[in-house]
């Protein structure tokens, strides 16, 4: 008699996902769905789909969903969380959405320490619009708006979001993970779960940055693309925790002494 050890669950709707073959979005979607189920919060969770390939996320996550303007997820999450403090609010965003047009909303929601969770898919490219340069596109990486490769002199340096946000007191949890192999996929799931738990405990702003592949716009096979993550992205975007609720508490106390 067989025992089912893994199968689809009600964390996701059973609509087939429209992402390209091998796209990291699908992997992360599944893990978030699992977490909603495992933590038993699906029915009181509101998800925010970004403007990006994963705008379709509002069809895939099996919880209340909202689809706001490009880059404004954190502002929308702020509005929702303040009105429904008992709901779990997460904003799912790409690098263009979060780090380019949405930079101000990202920084300020983090500085306010809003009790929300952001899942940040860093695939170093604008996927939806056809592979333009993102703030996270690597030095020398080719894109449709940096056909000769990103030139530091013209386009500056890629932005490390976790490092940037860790200069603020607001965040409670900042972590960077990757999808380039099953071990890291498992770690990513753990990080996502922790982020939601931190929100449930009311500890404040949590963000999980996930290095993810965009085979289509990187112009690679899926397998090449996960190699690219391991060999090129991870060195520039080191994996690990940049802030935990424990550090935050410490910092906060320090401040209040000062202030």
């Amino acid at each position, binding site marked *: 008699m*067989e025992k089912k*050890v893994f*199968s689809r669950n009600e964390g996701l709707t059973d609509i087939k996902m429209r992402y390209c*073959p*091998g*796209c*990291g979005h699908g*992997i992360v979607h599944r893990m978030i769905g699992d977490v909603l189920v495992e933590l038993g919060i699906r029915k009181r969770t509101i998800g925010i789909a970004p403007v990006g390939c994963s705008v379709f996320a509002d069809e895939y996550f099996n919880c209340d969903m909202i689809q706001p303007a490009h880059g404004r997820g954190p502002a929308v999450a702020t509005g929702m969380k303040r009105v429904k403090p008992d709901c779990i609010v997460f904003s799912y965003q790409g690098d263009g959405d979060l780090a380019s047009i949405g930079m101000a909303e990202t920084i300020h929601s983090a500085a306010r320490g809003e009790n929300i969770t952001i899942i940040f898919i860093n695939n170093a490219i604008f996927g939806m619009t056809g592979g333009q340069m993102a703030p996270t596109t690597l030095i020398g990486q080719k894109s449709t708006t940096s056909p000769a490769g990103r030139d530091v002199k013209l386009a500056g340096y890629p932005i490390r979001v976790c490092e940037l946000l860790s200069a603020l007191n607001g965040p409670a949890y900042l972590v960077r993970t990757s999808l380039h192999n099953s071990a890291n996929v498992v770690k990513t799931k753990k990080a996502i779960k922790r982020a939601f738990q931190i929100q449930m405990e009311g500890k404040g702003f949590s963000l999980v940055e996930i290095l993810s592949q965009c*085979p289509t716009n990187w112009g690679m096979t899926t*397998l090449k693309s996960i190699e690219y993550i391991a060999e090129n992205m991870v060195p520039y975007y080191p994996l690990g925790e940049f802030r935990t609720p424990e550090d935050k508490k410490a910092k906060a106390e320090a401040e209040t002494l000062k202030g």
Partner: protein
Amino acid sequence: DITRCKGCELCRVACPHNVIEMSKKFSPTGYYPAIMVRPEKCTGCALCAMVCPDVSIEVYKEETVSKEK
């Protein structure tokens, strides 16, 4: 669930026991889907399912059957 599979091969490389290969035949959705060529070797570790972007794998202890059905 073969109609979900897009033939990305992530499961193939994820499997520690090379249980999975890609089919040579187009699936109805126009991809070369993953199939189990060595089901007997499958340990049910579910790593393939963990990495599947299209949630098209179900894993059962004893054996994995999802992709065939």
